[in-house]
């Protein structure tokens, strides 16, 4: 019972039930209409044949007189399967007939009988009545003649149609029911399979996928889409787990250091302000790491996109270079700044400057070999509808295999592990460029690292 109720609640089953009911009603209507018109045609045929007979009789009467007329009727009445003939005297008393009894009053009215009337046959002795239609007309001597026809034929037809209608409706119902059972059970089985898989996924099996039978039906199609979704969720989840592991790891180290410093400061007889300054500096670094993380996720979520406004990128890069040039020189770098004027984009000055500062600081931190040249070059140029900002150094660069990973959060490459930094610089730079609809490209500077921000140029202002 429960199972039947479940089958009935399947959408496809409900729809097919509804359609079967509608189809059934329609076929009943069609059959009724068809029977109605066929019976009508049969009746009209009866009327035509009676009218023809009356016309013939009238002619016989006119040429051969009353005797000839009655003889003709007598002959016709005796023939097998004959029409109904009744003759009545002027008082309405039946004087001759080839039938037993007739519904009273039928003979008293001239013309066609309004409704089928009942009569009994001679050999049945009044036990069984039949239906007939007839036309009554007066004879010149005041007597009345009724010529009628039994309605057995149209009625038999009606009964045949009725029986076949019932049979076909029953067949339809049976066929429909068995289809529903088959389709419903199958759909239910698939649903159960999907449900079981979903349950396994819910209970923690991330690798479980919804079943795909290869039938290519709608269940397969939706399972495939859902599996693709699950794959993506698993990847994102994996990334998220990686990031939180990294956060935990990267924050635990400075926090432990912080704690140890505080501990050391406490155990000293008088706390030196040097220790406290170091503690503050360490705390600031941790806060900066959090700020950077929050900023990356805000930039990645795209909520800052509304803030893009027309921007003179050339001026931005020039300004920025002016801020960093002295720092680079102080660090022993020779600098080369190349700014192509009048490059305009839609952008956010603050975020782009932050991204540039991350790239420049990376270059200053990692962009040199022990005995090699220290060179920092910053340039901005326009190429093929894109603005290119390039920050390049002469350091060890990043191996092609590591470039993709280098822009992930906390992905600090082996060498950089020993240097201060939060491992978020390139991730933020990438997030910022992507927010601007551009991309961060890491290239070989032969030797060194070339970090390139590719940003779409602002559409030409139309006059």
């Amino acid at each position, binding site marked *: 019972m429960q199972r039947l109720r479940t089958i009935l609640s399947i959408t496809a089953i409900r729809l097919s039930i509804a359609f079967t009911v509608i189809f059934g009603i329609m076929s009943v209507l069609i059959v009724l209409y068809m029977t109605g018109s066929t019976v009508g045609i049969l009746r009209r045929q009866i009327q035509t044949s009676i009218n023809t007979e009356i016309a013939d009789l009238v002619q016989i009467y006119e040429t051969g007189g009353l005797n000839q007329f009655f003889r003709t009727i007598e002959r016709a009445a005796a023939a097998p399967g004959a029409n109904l003939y009744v003759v009545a005297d002027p008082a309405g008393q039946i004087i001759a007939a080839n039938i037993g009894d007739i519904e009273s009053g039928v003979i008293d009215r001239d013309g066609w009988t309004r409704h089928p009337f009942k009569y009994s046959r001679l050999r049945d002795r009044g036990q069984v009545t039949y239906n007939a239609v007839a036309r009554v007309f007066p004879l010149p001597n005041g007597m009345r003649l009724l010529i009628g026809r039994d309605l057995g034929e149209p009625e038999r037809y009606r009964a045949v149609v009725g029986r076949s209608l019932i049979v076909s409706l029953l067949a339809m119902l049976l066929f429909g029911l068995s289809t529903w059972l088959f389709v419903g059970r199958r759909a239910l089985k698939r649903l159960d399979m999907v449900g079981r898989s979903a349950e396994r996924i819910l209970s923690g099996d991330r690798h479980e996928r919804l079943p795909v039978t290869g039938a290519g039906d709608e269940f397969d199609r939706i399972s495939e889409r859902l599996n693709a979704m699950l794959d993506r969720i698993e990847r994102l989840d994996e990334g998220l787990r990686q990031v939180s592991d990294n956060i935990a790891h990267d924050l635990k180290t400075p926090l432990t250091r912080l704690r140890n410093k505080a501990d050391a400061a406490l155990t000293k007889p008088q706390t030196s302000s040097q220790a406290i*300054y170091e503690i503050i500096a360490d705390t*600031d670094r941790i*806060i*900066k790491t959090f700020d950077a993380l929050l900023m990356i996720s805000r930039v990645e979520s795209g909520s800052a996109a509304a803030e893009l406004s027309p921007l003179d990128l050339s001026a931005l890069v020039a300004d920025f270079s002016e801020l960093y040039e002295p720092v680079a020189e102080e660090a022993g770098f020779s600098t080369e700044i190349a700014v192509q004027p009048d490059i305009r984009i839609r952008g956010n000055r603050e975020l782009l400057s932050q991204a540039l500062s991350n790239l420049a600081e990376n270059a200053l931190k990692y962009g040199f070999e022990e005995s090699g040249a220290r060179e920092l070059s910053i340039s901005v140029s326009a190429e093929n509808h894109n603005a290119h900002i390039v920050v390049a150094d002469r350091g060890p660069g990043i191996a092609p295999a590591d470039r993709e990973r280098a822009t992930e959060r906390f992905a600090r490459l082996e060498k950089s592990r020993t240097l201060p*930094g939060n491992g978020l610089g390139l991730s933020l730079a990438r997030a910022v460029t992507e927010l601007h609809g551009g991309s961060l490209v890491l290239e070989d500077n032969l030797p060194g690292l070339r970090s390139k921000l590719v940003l779409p140029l602002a559409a030409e202002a139309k006059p």
Partner: protein
Amino acid sequence: MRILLIEDDREAAGWLLRAIGEAGHVAEHAEDGAAGAHLARTGSFDVMIVDRMLPKLDGLTMLRELRRDGNDTPALILSALGQVDDRVEGLRSGGDDYLTKPYAVSELLARIEVLARRRRTEDGETVLRVADLELDRLSRTVKRAGKHILIQPREFRLLEYLMRNAGKVVTRTMLLEQVWDYHFDPQTNVIDVHVSRLRSKIDKDFEVPLLHTVRGAGYVLREP
């Protein structure tokens, strides 16, 4: 200096009030926007510190209302939201400066001193003087002890800001915001390098230094 603190977090407020008191200022405290607006209208303050999220009347709405009524007490907005859009919105609502939590108390104190001072010495003077150092805002020249000093445009703005706030500690972040108009935190010592270049121009050849580093806070330019 009289300071109005509008902050609903009692712990943070208690701690700020103590720091303000230790710095030698007098503070009044309101715990929600409505009470804060009332105090601001009835009292006279040199500067107000307004938390952005406040019960009853949020900080920005309160500030907008005060500004509409002609109250121009300089306001420092405190907020947990630190993105550019939040800051721009804060400044548009009538804030004069914006500080993101968590902040160092030294940073907050430096900023309110500068805010209060800005109000007292609004633009007016064309020549700024600190001891024998002289900056002419019209001719854009700098002299120390009557001797011309060659200076870059950015160094000029840096010096102008330091002189305008002579005697007050300014933090690196304040310099980056006010002189360069950047609101991010560089990892390296960009500001230090610029300040030390400026210092080599105005102090190096002279006996008495004017530009000092304040450990753990920032810089101060002051009379010897």
